[in-house]
């Protein structure tokens, strides 16, 4: 394994089996991951995007030793996930978001103290470490309240506090800002950036494209258990057909007009969406020369026509890739 890699997987597959039927004699298999190859460099924030059920959480659980792969090999921080999991666990942190995963009848501080002991954090300095983490995630003032009184956002912060308590080298964040209000989400993103500044490598799964765009140096899009693309945001833009996106909206377009739009110079892709009687064409454009007037010129007889331009965003890229995979 390359020393500069924090994660390296080759052909990781994961099949879940479930027994069904009256006598549980029917075995149903679901292939959640279909041969995932992934390399994450030390010190980067790597984003993992994908629709629900794409296999993101399965991959995170495999990489954090909570699940064994059915086939393939995987190393994190140079250690094999199956053979060397005991040596790896103290060096990685896992944040699985949501309402569950914390002891609700005791305080946040007690939760952290318990996990500090499970991670072998020295008793001398343990209290100071817990206090520092509570302050870092913004829970210091609520530290001695029972967790059952916490909002979802506060529980999420507690999850993060637990994940970073033992100062891991590698942190897995599974949708860390889901359910957070905008202010808390922004604070969490700030915290994530500060962790990377401290040298922590982060694998982040998220549904929020702006978050991935803001935080991640490189990204992979996972769809139906396969990585369908991986690159920087700029690299992914060129992959899906250009960094310019033109949107054309109007009524009563016919096939010939759609073909004319597709034939314009630099247009690499044409997508259509209906909004009641209105139709929107979305054009991915590689050429910087194509002007809005040229687009209008291709659709004469539509005085109501609206044409606008914007940069191809990560959401566009993501939707294109997932749609391509679905088709």
């Amino acid at each position, binding site marked *: 394994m390359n020393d500069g890699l924090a994660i390296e997987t080759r052909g990781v597959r*994961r099949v*879940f*089996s479930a027994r069904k039927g009256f006598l549980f004699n029917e075995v149903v298999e679901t292939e959640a991951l279909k041969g995932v190859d992934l390399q994450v460099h030390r010190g980067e924030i790597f984003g993992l995007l994908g629709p629900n059920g794409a296999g993101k959480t*399965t991959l995170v*659980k495999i990489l*954090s*030793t*909570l*699940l*064994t792969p059915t086939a393939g090999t995987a190393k994190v921080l140079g250690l094999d996930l199956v053979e060397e999991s*005991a040596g790896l*666990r*103290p060096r990685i942190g*896992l944040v*699985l978001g*949501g309402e*569950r*995963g*914390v*002891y*609700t*009848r*005791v305080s946040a501080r*007690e939760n952290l*103290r*318990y*996990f*500090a*002991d*499970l*991670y*072998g954090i020295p*008793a001398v300095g343990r209290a100071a470490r817990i206090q520092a983490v509570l302050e870092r995630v913004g829970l210091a003032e609520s530290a001695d309240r*029972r967790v059952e009184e916490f909002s979802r956002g506060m529980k999420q912060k507690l999850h993060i506090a*637990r994940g970073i308590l033992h100062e891991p080298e590698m942190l897995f964040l599974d949708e860390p800002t889901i359910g957070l209000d905008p202010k808390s989400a922004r604070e969490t993103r700030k915290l994530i950036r500060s962790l990377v500044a401290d040298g922590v490598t982060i694998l982040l799964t998220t549904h929020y494209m702006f978050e991935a765009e803001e935080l991640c140096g490189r990204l992979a899009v996972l769809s139906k258990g396969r990585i369908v693309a991986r690159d920087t945001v700029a690299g992914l833009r060129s992959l899906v057909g250009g960094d310019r996106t033109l949107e054309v909206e109007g009524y009563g377009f016919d096939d010939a007009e759609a073909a004319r739009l597709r034939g314009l110079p630099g247009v690499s892709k044409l997508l259509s969406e209906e909004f009641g009687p209105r139709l929107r064409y979305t054009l991915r454009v590689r050429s910087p020369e194509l002007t809005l007037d040229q687009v209008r010129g291709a659709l004469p007889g539509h005085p109501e026509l609206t044409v606008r331009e914007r940069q191809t965003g990560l959401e566009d890229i993501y939707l294109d890739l997932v749609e391509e995979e679905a088709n």
Partner: protein
Amino acid sequence: MAPPMTRRRALVASLRLAALMFLADPQWLVPSLIAPVVFALVSYELFLGSSAWFVLYAILGAGMMSMWGQTLYGSGWATGQDRELGTLEPTLSAPAPYVYVVLGRVIWNTIAGLLGGAIVYVVIAITYGHPIPLDDPWAFLALFVFVIVTLSAVGIVFAAAYVYTRYAGFIQNVGEFAFYVGTGCMFPVVLLPFWSNPISLIFPPTWALDALRYAAIPNYQGFGWGLGWDLVGAVATTAIYLAIAGTIFTRVERHVIEVGNAAWF
């Protein structure tokens, strides 16, 4: 493998958290203290006209209800609660082996069970103005602790079942009262049909409870092979259960990671 320090710390941390959770959740007071005390008081009234030793049968049954519920049921159920709270996954992903987390809980439940049994005894003594007579109080005390150890051994195996499958609670609930009666918690196993005795003897508490009655009741016959063989049987079956627990926990942890059902409840 986690260093010994981490394992010891995990055990103590788990014991501490179990105590905090117990104190924070008053619902445990019902099976651990209130129900056994009520059961003991009712038993005492029902058998008041009988000999003092017969009354002791009933009181022992009540005391055992507390210890059985807290030690055996509590140890397994705590792992089920980990599944329900979603804390099983983060706990399994920590370096400390999960068996030490379970051991910490079992030790706490042992302490709580002892406390429950003692409270039953004290309440009866205070209510009726005199202590319940015991044939050999010191032997009784020692064996009382030993009974808890045997219950704990079974509790650890039950806890492994809870890690293995989310359906362990169903199995435990189905077997709950059969176990309570079948191991002699309520009355001596020899009073049950003969065919059931070999099944009862598979469980360490059966032997230990029979031994406990030797220390409590003069001329107690039990299985008829005497206190010594009861102790041998109790030690042997407890050792087997602990060996089984030690072996299966590693396998159970591996199984959960292979199947991926730690988040299910």
